[in-house]
């Protein structure tokens, strides 16, 4: 039995979670929200995390009803992500490990999403679509690695959505993507946008610059809701297409959607239609787990710890660049 605490702060969410053998004992979170039209920057985001992390940590401990001595391993996000915010969590995690005299373990953020998704949905060996503000990857497990079959060759899908929300000056609360999703529900008129799939890879920058360049003109003919709707339909069709290609390639009949964009219900619905057509199943989680959180780091860390992965204190650093396929998946041998 392993009890793990996880610190996550690679982007604008700050989360602390506690798990015991896959049972979630605490899942606490704060989000740094910027004014409409603005994105979040590393320095300000790190400051937000600094100001909130003690409170979130206390809240998590209280929620779990545990004392620090009962915890077996302290986990934190090693990367990928923004340097300064990552550092805030790493420092607090290191301090806790020293203070409580517990081992420390750095976790790959993407692997955290995947393992959290598998835990919640009970998907066995799914093709994973990982979609967030910084990532767009189609991943499948093979021989102790989560291998990347397809990904964006420029910006992430969440980044494309966020930046389009800024063009329309939509609110960033609770998240720009959520507001695009709500607006898209009221869209009626469909605008054809550039569609760019290359093999199992996708490109989104062309769509974004098309929208940015023509926004004045487009708004004469289309409502903002129409544009949100058209954008979602196009981006998600591309994602579903490359996911299906990867499934066909691997002979897989399960899809797991993880990452912040993964809680978009239209994306889940489209993926469901694709899966139904090929006799496959789609698994997705809601915003408690899709959006960055501490539980996913705690849980993935617990799996690694249980299977014998250890990290020396001097290696408890952070890295902005950390590929999903760099991680040796010691806890799976299928």
């Amino acid at each position, binding site marked *: 039995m392993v009890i793990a605490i996880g610190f996550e702060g*690679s*982007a*604008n*969410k700050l989360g602390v979670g506690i798990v015991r053998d896959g049972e979630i004992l605490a899942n606490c979170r704060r989000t740094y929200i910027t004014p409409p039209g603005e994105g979040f920057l590393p320095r300000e985001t790190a400051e937000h995390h600094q100001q909130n992390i003690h409170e979130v940590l206390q809240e998590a401990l209280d929620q779990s009803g545990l004392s620090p001595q009962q915890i077996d391993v302290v986990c934190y996000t090693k990367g*990928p*992500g*923004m340097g300064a915010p990552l550092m805030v969590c790493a420092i607090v995690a290191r301090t806790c490990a020293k203070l409580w005299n517990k081992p420390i373990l750095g976790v790959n*953020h*993407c692997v955290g999403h995947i393992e959290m998704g598998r835990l919640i949905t009970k998907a066995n060996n799914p093709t994973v679509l990982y979609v*967030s*503000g*910084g*990532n767009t990857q189609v991943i499948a497990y093979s021989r102790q690695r989560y*291998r*990347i*079959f*397809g*990904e964006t*060759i*420029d910006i*992430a899908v*969440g980044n494309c959505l966020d930046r389009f929300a800024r063009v329309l000056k939509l609110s960033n609360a609770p998240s720009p993507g959520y507001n695009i999703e709500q607006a898209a529900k009221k869209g009626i008129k*469909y605008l*054809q946008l550039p*569609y760019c*799939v*290359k*093999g*199992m*890879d996708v490109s989104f920058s062309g769509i974004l610059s098309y929208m940015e360049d023509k926004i004045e003109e487009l708004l004469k003919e289309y409502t903002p809701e129409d544009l949100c709707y058209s954008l979602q*339909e*196009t981006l998600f*069709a591309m994602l*579903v*297409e490359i996911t*299906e*290609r990867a*499934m*066909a*390639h691997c002979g897989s009949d399960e899809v797991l959607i993880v*990452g*912040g964009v993964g809680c978009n219900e239209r994306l889940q619905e*489209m*993926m469901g*239609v*694709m899966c139904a*057509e090929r006799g496959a199943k789609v698994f997705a989680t809601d915003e408690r787990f899709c959006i*960055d959180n501490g539980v996913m780091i705690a849980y993935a860390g617990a799996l690694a710890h249980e299977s014998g992965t250890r990290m020396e204190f001097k290696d408890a650093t952070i890295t*902005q*660049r*950390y*590929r999903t396929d760099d991680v040796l998946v010691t806890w799976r041998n299928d």
Partner: protein
Amino acid sequence: MNDLKILKQGAEAKLYICKYLGKSTLIKERFQKRYRHPDLDKSITKERIRNEARSIVRCKTADVKTPALYLVDFQRRRIYMQHFEHSITVKDYIIQHATKNAEITQNLDEICKMIGITVRKLHENNIIHGDLTTSNMLLVPKNLNNETTEEKCLEKERFDLVMIDFGLSFIDSSTEDKGVDLYVLERALISTHNDYPDLFSKILDAYKNHSKNNIKEILSKFEEVRARGRKRTMVG
């Protein structure tokens, strides 16, 4: 009369084989995808049929072997083309045969060279394949008459490399797109043939040596695209 036999159901198309106009024919039918907006579905399908047919024809002047086209039918969402009965995909060839003996492993070098030269010919003619994988390359014996077995045919100079599946192809002269095309191939090789880590470098050597035209620019674009994937900060 024309019994359609389903050969394969892919992610976006069904492949049938039949006799058509007296020839052994492969029908590629792109089916409707209900998950996407009907307008988008229609335009993607039409565009891909058109791009596929266009590139297949263009290849023929670029000295790259492709199937002959017998009918392009937008209404039925189909392309009718030559079916190579005695062919094997490069993917299956590598998986099934390559480990058997040293002679065939040598063939692999030969195949890599042919792939490199072929991709280079495509790019010299501004044809971007868009989906370069070993499943989209066929080995076809040159002379079938001499009762040769499939394996014997796959000796040096006795087979052709035929390129297929141009649905994601387009015509573009930019070095960026050529770099991305190479990157797509490298990624496909890594995910499909991770037992043979040097396939791509052999292909790239042949690609480089076939012609010097613009090669520096293409390779530096390729490195740049590759770096984008590896070094992206990936926030969130």
